[in-house]
């Protein structure tokens, strides 16, 4: 139930004085309440839970995480520590 889906804000407007908008989830567009992300702008990514944007997705941070994952593997390959490490565990 705590699942949140990332989507891109396409449109922002007000309904009954509440900040609402359209969010695109890879082609499926839904109406979402944007009241809790007052600074979000069209084009930004957000995480949506039961029809509410609960945060602006930090795109720079997402790229940084992916870069660190990439590096982790490369470092191991260079040092050849992966096999060594595996040997330690099973031995």
């Amino acid at each position, binding site marked *: *139930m*705590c*699942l*949140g*889906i*990332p989507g*891109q804000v396409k449109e922002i407007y007000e309904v*009954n*004085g*509440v900040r609402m908008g359209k969010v695109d*989830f*890879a082609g499926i567009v839904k109406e979402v*309440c944007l*009241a*809790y*992300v*007052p600074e979000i702008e069209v084009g930004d*990514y957000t*995480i949506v*839970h*039961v*029809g*509410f944007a*609960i*945060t602006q*997705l*930090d*795109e720079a*941070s*997402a790229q*940084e*995480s*992916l870069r660190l*994952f*990439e590096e*982790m*593997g490369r470092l*191991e390959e260079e040092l050849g*520590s*992966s096999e*060594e*490490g*595996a040997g*330690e*565990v*099973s031995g």
Partner: protein
Amino acid sequence: MKYLDEFRNPEIAQRLFDEIRRMTTRPWAIMEVCGGQTHSIIRNGIDQLLPPQIELIHGPGCPVCVTPLETIDKALMIAAQPGVIFCSFGDMLRVPGSEKDLFRVKSEGADVRIVYSPLDAVKLAQANPEREVVFFAIGFETTAPANAMAVYQAKQLGLRNFSMLVSHVLVPPAIAAIMESPATRVQAFLAAGHVCTVMGYWEYEPLVERYHVPIVVTGFEPLDVLEGIRRAVAQLEKGEARLENAYPRAVRREGNVPAQKMLADVFEVTDRAWRGIGVIPRSGWRLSERYREFDAEARFAVANIRTQESPLCRSGEVLQGLLKPNQCPAFGKECTPRTPLGATMVSSEGACAAYYQYGRFVQVEDIPVAPSV
């Protein structure tokens, strides 16, 4: 889908598995708190691909599962009253009450409706002024801002025919309760990412200190879960206990401040009974004095409820991480998603439902393992 697919990359996952395998020298028991993470782990076979020394203990982070039986029975009583439109998230409809579930009440003629967002229930109240619209407001901190907005809007719009049956639960007191239990085997926690998106993670700093237990804020995609596990193992192997954020694209230390302001206005902390676990002090939210007029428990007469749990169901032990779902004698026999004995077999976040859906009918230890090379 952007920001989902990249975090499901199997090659990168393999590197994370390798890294975890490389650093693991001893057995460790790590609890993933959130049921969404449990499903990600079981669906992707993460628990089976980890080194055998690492055990993942599935936590109580399934709001549908821990909603007290008495509250389910109250929901059934309210839903059955004439003139009521009872609105709920879809997960709740099959949760067994003492005698029946919401589906059964609906089939007997009650007007029970599944809503996607709590604001849909407010719209229904606006469109049906002659009816009483009741929303079943359950969930952890992630869902609470949405439910709070529904009652806030109802008040702003002056809706007299809208109310909520509230059963909100909170993660930090549950972590404390698990660590206080003499039976606990948990050595590190993966904290629920989206709960922290809303509340931040400063609340977990005292828990790390008090129980000297590593807590890693963790997301839901396979790479997120693996990164959470990797960081937890790294701390355990070094004998450290720190709070780390492994889900920085969605979580900041202070959380979502506008949402927290709304929560502080609409809700107040209360003791809460967790189904299968018991009362945990100050572990829930109820409507604050300012919104008490929207409390469905006060609006409808729902006293004198005598609850009756299935004597076969051991979901309480499952929720506390003391029993794996497939160790329960009723699992897959008397208890299936079609004929659930407990809520853990119903919810899309319940551990029993995950084990059933992904075919985990036997213990991992019972599967012969190929000799390691």
